[in-house]
Structures are given as structure tokens and as C-alpha cells.
């Protein structure tokens, strides 16, 4: 536990990839397999289930620190992180450093889960007294289910390649299907190449698009590129092998249970096929929006009602393997031709083909991008016709070109202190627009400002606070900001009648007065425009 905690602290402290990979390699070089498997799972995003309710932990901590609960709450508000608050309030501990990571996760924490409050108090205090500050911080994050220190899979793969001598590609592919926190799984992951019994049902590493960071003209002849809509769905590979078809997310999850109809349709594909595409909630020829898809994602074994209410399609755009042969080195054009053939033969409307957009010149592409939002797409994808299917995010092969977001001017009306690296500063903002003579909240935004702007807004909030509700301040409605968001939909839960997706601050508008901010009516007009956009008339597809 102590070594893992030190690894976590090092990852938290070091920002450079080289240092992080070195810290990971140091840890994994001689961690016992049963600990290493847990460490890797945790760093790749697995979270232990909460073992003690946080309200209880707060009570235990306040009592152990000898301070009233209100003062504990004030400390927490200031620090912005419960585990860190507790760690700072209690003295350095020792005595339990010998308990290994897997023993905490497999035995001690699960045992804690079932105990009554008093028994839990005893165990929790024992752990706090027994662990040094670094380990205590990690332990508390396990107990609250809030452990979130992660590393990009690529860094972990590099570190493991260094430790094991295996190729990165092989490790990435073995990891792509997920990892179990057991010594056996760990040994399988690191077993030498050749002694291969790599699970054949696993997905291949996804090729990721690079944001377009250069003028279109720098891409050369438009004829060298294939253009598709950038769908606002969930990326998914279909792996059809043996007696099953698995639907894999990029996070390494199998999505069959949430999308049984797609999984069933995928059985129509011949064995040895791996396809790449995107899951979308889709009806009457147009995407239904991400929030609908999320309802499907969140529900395993959906009933007939949900299936009818939110139908899904899988929109295919690439072919990675056919008849068991890896085609990733073949040019996109060849893979695309194979994909079209396979989907045509399968003949199932739930396995759709992502249309190619005919683009005569770069100018036309700009026009298409402006249409993307109204058509329910996030923007455009540009893929080089002669390029292989690469692993990870590589420049020059796939570019994503997001459409401009929706924008409105809104007034800052409430602010709340941030967490994590924003702890202490007022960084969580509520923005409002006018409805008659009244300001109605319509979005909460946290991001978009640089450090200097964040501090300027923090000062503004402190000087213009009208009322204090715990960590929240109501501020004088004077500061106007330009807010961008990706999507807008109707919502009965919001007073403004609309909900927006990914709101963020584009810039401060000190030049504008509050009275000049936008109105609810303007938001409704955006909504109406989006809902009535002609999607049924298909984009000009070449296939």
C-alpha cells in the first residue's frame, strides 16, 4: 500500500510523460502480481465501491481531530477534497504500512462495508492511525469510492513494455479488452509473446482523430481525403468471432447488454470480422442526441418500451479484420470497400453505413461544417484515403473538425468555490439570461477561462457577493460572459425550459452591460431552428 501510495503521489506531482512513465516502471518492476494487477486496474479507471458513507467519515474525522463538525465542513470547503482534508487534520500515522494493496482492496475494505457505525469507526480510526499521510490519502479515496488518479493507457503500456520487454502494440491489444485485478490476469498480460493464447474476442486499439490544427489547404488535394460526419455518439467496435459478437467501447467495456438489438444484428456478420463505428440513438433518419443515447447506455437489458422509444443504430466506418485477417495496414479506400460489401450482405438496418460526403473543394467543406450542428452531428471527420488504420492519435491520418458551438451572452448570478486545483477560488459559475425583467439561470460552467481570468472573476465575486449560502455566493448581476455550448434541448426540470450540453465560457464581455445579455426567447429560437432542420433530406453521399 505504501509503495502504491508513493506511486500515486509521484504521478500527481510529475507532469512530464517521461517522469510518469519512469515512476510507473519503478513501481511495476517489482510489485507482486496480485498488487500490480490492482494498481493497473485502479490507474486505468476502476473504482472500488464506497465502503463507508462520507457523512460518517466526516463525523469520525471531526471527532478524531477534536474540532466541531461545522469547522470540519469549513475546512473541506477550503481544501476542496474530503480525503485531503482528513489527511491534513490528523497527525502522521504508522504501523500498518506492511498491509499490501490487494489485501486492503480484497479483504479489509469489503469487510468494512458490512459493519455497523461503531465497528466501522474502530476500523477507520485504526487505519488512519496506522497509515502515513500519503497512504492515508489514497486509502480514504478507496473508502469513499473517489479514487480518480489515472494515467493514459499509453503511458502504462510504455512502462509495462519497458518492464516486460513486450512490444507496446501487443500489450495495448491485450489490455484493450479490460483487465481483471487478479494475479492470474496480470501474468497473462505479461506472458511472453508466442505462448499466445490472447483472447480472440478482444477489440483492437482504436484509431483516434487529431483535432484539425492547420488550414485545410495544407492538407493538399481534397481528393486525397474522405469526409464523414463526426457523430455525437459512442465509439464502438464490433468483434465477430466464433459463436459471439461483442460490442466494445473505447473504455474496454462490452456494451452488448445495453444494446442487445445491435449485438443480435452483428451476428449476421461472418466470423473473423472486426468493424469500427459509432453507436447512436437514431430515429427517422436522424440522431436523437447524446442524452437519449445515455439513457440506453445506462440501462442493461432494456425492455421493449425503451427499445421502441430510443432505437439505436450502429453506424459503421471502418473494417479492421475480415475472415480473421488483420487489414489495418491496408489503405482506407480498400477497407471502406470491404466494409460496404459486408454491411450490404448483412442487410440489417441497425448496422448502417456512415455516409461519405462528396466534397468538390475545401470551400464546400466549410459550408458542410456549418451545417453539421443542424444535422445532429458534431462536425466533420477527414480521413486520408491511402492511410492505414493507426493505433492511437496520430497526426496526418484522421482529423476531426468540430463545428462552431452555439453561443449566447449571459450574466453571472451565482458562484461556488471549486474543487481540486481550483480549491478556494470561486470557479463554478451559474449563468442566467433574461426572461422579461427577471434573470433565469440556464447553465453552470466551470471551464474556459485562463488562470488570470479565473482570478479576476474570483475577485469580482468576492467584491460583489450579495448573499452567502454555504459555499455559494449570489453576486450582483453585472458580469457578462459569452457562453458556448454543444447542444440544446427542451427540459422541464430547468426554469429556463432548456438544457444545454457542455456549456463553457468563451470570454468575458466587460464591454457589455447586464441589460444587453441574451434572453430565454433567444434560446428557444435556437432550439426551434435545430428541431426543424431538414435531416431527412440526406446529405450528398457518394455511396
Amino acid at each position, binding site marked *: 500500500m505504501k509503495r502504491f501510495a508513493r506511486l500515486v503521489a509521484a504521478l500527481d506531482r510529475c507532469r512530464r510523460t517521461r517522469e510518469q512513465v519512469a515512476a510507473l516502471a519503478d513501481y511495476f518492476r517489482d510489485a507482486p502480481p496480485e498488487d500490480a494487477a490492482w494498481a493497473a486496474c485502479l490507474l486505468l479507471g476502476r473504482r472500488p465501491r464506497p465502503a463507508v458513507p462520507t457523512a460518517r467519515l466526516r463525523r469520525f474525522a471531526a471527532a478524531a481531530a477534536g474540532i466541531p463538525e461545522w469547522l470540519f465542513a469549513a*475546512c473541506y470547503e*477550503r*481544501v476542496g477534497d474530503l480525503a485531503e482534508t482528513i489527511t491534513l487534520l490528523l497527525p502522521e500515522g504508522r504501523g500498518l504500512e506492511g498491509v499490501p494493496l490487494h489485501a486492503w482492496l480484497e479483504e479489509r475494505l469489503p469487510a468494512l462495508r458490512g459493519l455497523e457505525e461503531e465497528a466501522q469507526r474502530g476500523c477507520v480510526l485504526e487505519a488512519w492511525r496506522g497509515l502515513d499521510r500519503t497512504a492515508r490519502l489514497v486509502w480514504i479515496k478507496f473508502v469513499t469510492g473517489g479514487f480518480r488518479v489515472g494515467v493514459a493507457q499509453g503511458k502504462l503500456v510504455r512502462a509495462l513494455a519497458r518492464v516486460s520487454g513486450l512490444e507496446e502494440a501487443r500489450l495495448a491489444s491485450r489490455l484493450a479488452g479490460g483487465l481483471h485485478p487478479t494475479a492470474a490476469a496480470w501474468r497473462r498480460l505479461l506472458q511472453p509473446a508466442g505462448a499466445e493464447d490472447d483472447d480472440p474476442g478482444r477489440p483492437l486499439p482504436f484509431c483516434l482523430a487529431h483535432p484539425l490544427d492547420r488550414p485545410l489547404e495544407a492538407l493538399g488535394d481534397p481528393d486525397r481525403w474522405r469526409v464523414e460526419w463526426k457523430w455525437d455518439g459512442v465509439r464502438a467496435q464490433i468483434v465477430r468471432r466464433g459463436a459471439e459478437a461483442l460490442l466494445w467501447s473505447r473504455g474496454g467495456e462490452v456494451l452488448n447488454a445495453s444494446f442487445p438489438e445491435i449485438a443480435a444484428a452483428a451476428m449476421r456478420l461472418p466470423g473473423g470480422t472486426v468493424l469500427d463505428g459509432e453507436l447512436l440513438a437514431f430515429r427517422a433518419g436522424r440522431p436523437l442526441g447524446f442524452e437519449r443515447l445515455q439513457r440506453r447506455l445506462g440501462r442493461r437489458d432494456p425492455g421493449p418500451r425503451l427499445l421502441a422509444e430510443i432505437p439505436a443504430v450502429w453506424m459503421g466506418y471502418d473494417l479492421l479484420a475480415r475472415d480473421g485477417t488483420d487489414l489495418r495496414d491496408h489503405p482506407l479506400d480498400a477497407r471502406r470497400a470491404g466494409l460496404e460489401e459486408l454491411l450490404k450482405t448483412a442487410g440489417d438496418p441497425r448496422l448502417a453505413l456512415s455516409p461519405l460526403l462528396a466534397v468538390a473543394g475545401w470551400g464546400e467543406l466549410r459550408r458542410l461544417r456549418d451545417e453539421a450542428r443542424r444535422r445532429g452531428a458534431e462536425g466533420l471527420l477527414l480521413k486520408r484515403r491511402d492511410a492505414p488504420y493507426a493505433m492511437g492519435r496520430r497526426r496526418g491520418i484522421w482529423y476531426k473538425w468540430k463545428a462552431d458551438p452555439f453561443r449566447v451572452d449571459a450574466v453571472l448570478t451565482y458562484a461556488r468555490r471549486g474543487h*481540486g486545483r481550483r480549491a478556494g477560488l470561486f470557479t463554478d459559475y451559474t449563468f442566467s439570461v433574461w426572461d422579461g425583467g427577471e434573470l433565469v439561470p440556464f447553465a453552470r460552467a466551470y471551464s474556459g477561462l485562463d*488562470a488570470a481570468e479565473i482570478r479576476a472573476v474570483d475577485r469580482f465575486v468576492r467584491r460583489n457577493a450579495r448573499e452567502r449560502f454555504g459555499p455559494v455566493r449570489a453576486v450582483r448581476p453585472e458580469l457578462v460572459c459569452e457562453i458556448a455550448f454543444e447542444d440544446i434541448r427542451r427540459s422541464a426540470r430547468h426554469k429556463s425550459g432548456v438544457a444545454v450540453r457542455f456549456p463553457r465560457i468563451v470570454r468575458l464581455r466587460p464591454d457589455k452591460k447586464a441589460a444587453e445579455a441574451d434572453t430565454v426567447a433567444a434560446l428557444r429560437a435556437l432550439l426551434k431552428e435545430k428541431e426543424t432542420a431538414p435531416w431527412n433530406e440526406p446529405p450528398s453521399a457518394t455511396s
Partner: protein
Amino acid sequence: MVTHAHADHARPGCGSYLANPETARLLRLRLGAAIAVQELPYGEILDLGGVRLSLHPSGHIRGAAQVRLEHRGEVWVVTGDVKTAPDPTCLPYEPVRGHGLVLESTFGLPVFRWPEPAAVVAELLDWWRGNAAEGRTSLLFAYALGKAQRILAALPAGAGPIFLHPALEAPTAAYRAEGVRLAPARRLAAAGARGDLAAALVLAPPSAAAAPGPGRSPAARAFASGWMQLRGLRRRRALDRGFVLSDHADWPGLLAVVRQSGAERVLLVHGSAPELARFLKEQGLRAEAAPQEAAGEEDEAPP
């Protein structure tokens, strides 16, 4: 009446100033030699229309003073910024008794407990040595007046080359002129070829954003401040390290100041004033957060 020369306590534009002599010298540096300053050494009493006023070391930075005010037998003490931890560059905090106390509470929450300064300096030296071994410059942010000199005073003379950002030159020279022993340091402008900075420690004010000098590997960045107790603040500034070294009292230090003053009434300014006030009230004192103008920026606001 100016307690000490930090910008949030010493504003320009007054007709005349009253301050301790060391603060007076720093004030002239900051506000111009032409300002009118009446100097009042520590411990001497000035009669101001029946109010007896005297200054006493607050341990915050060089020249920092608490103000003791006595009128018809009632004594009030205004701490200004106060530090109870040891600091070789200034006189230690002197407990002053009074009926009432006006106390700063920048770090007035129990999560703020400072480690031993000597242990922090040892950590800092380790960090510097590690960077030097890799040929990386160590860039350490520290407040220009007080903190930077406190660090220079704590570093052993032969530790390695030290450079100062221009903003640190004048206050450092002022400390040296008063005979405070500081590790030798050169002006950043005097750094020549890039080899000069490779193993060096560069001290810069928190507002200096860019890493100094040329060179392929960027400098390792750290910040010396009480705020570095909070991980979130370290990460927000994208720092490699945070060194918990403050010129303000921590929670136990603040409680000690209240206790030693013997005060029954306490007014709190800065930072967590409402919280410390409530805590002291629950301990049976008459305490409240003093109404105040817009908070200062120099050393009380989180970075």
C-alpha cells in the same frame, strides 16, 4: 500607521506615514524616497492625543510590527500580519497583552499546520540537488519581500549558484544593507551562457510566469508558500513541487497569539475570519470578523 511594507498594507498617497525604522526604509524603496515618514523604533511610546502607541515585533517579515494602543487603561493590540515560527531575518514575534486584539486570520483553519521550517529547507535542497544532477534549472517562486530573503538566509553558502529575478534585487539589497546574512546570489541578467543556469536555483516572484533562460529542458518549478499545503493549488499552478513555508501564523500559531494576548475581545481580518471568529466564540471569547475593504493581494490571497 503602517505595520509592514507589503503592498497590501502600505499604500501610496498618504500625506505622512508612521512606521518602525526598518519598515520606513522599505517603504521609501517602494513608495519613493520623498514620502514623509515618522520613525518609531520597537518598544518606544508615542503619545497621540492621549492614546499611548507603541510598536512590537510581529515576526512576519523584517520591520513588521504589532501596534499596541492604550487609552485610559484599556489596551488594544493590532497584530498586522503575524508569524510565530522562527525566521533569522527578523525579530521573533513578541506576545503583547491587551483587552482587545485585532488579529489576522489568513490561515485561520485547522488544516493549516506548518511543518518545521528546517525540514522544509532540507526538502528544498534535495529538490534543487536532484534537478541540478539532471542539468535542470530550479525555478522557485517566492514573495519578493520577506519570503525570498528568508529562503536566502536559510540556504547554506556553498549550496550552488543562486540567481535573482529583477523584482527581488531591491528588497534583497535592502536586507543585506541592514546586515542580514544571506546566501550570495547574482542578478539573473548576469547569467551568461546557458550552462550558468543549468544547476542553478532561480528565485522569482509568483507573478513571473515564464521559465528563465534558454536551454532545452524547461526549469523545474516550485513555490514556497503556506498555500502549498493544499494540493489543489499546487496543481493549479502546474508546479513540480510546493514547499510549505509561510510568513503567516498557522492554526496553532493563531490560537497561541490569542491565548498569550489574554484578550477577551478579538476582531479578525483576512482569510478565514468568520470561521476563526466562530471557533473563538465557542471557546467563550467575544470574537467577530471585522468588516473590511476589498482583501489585499500580496500574500493573503491564494496563488
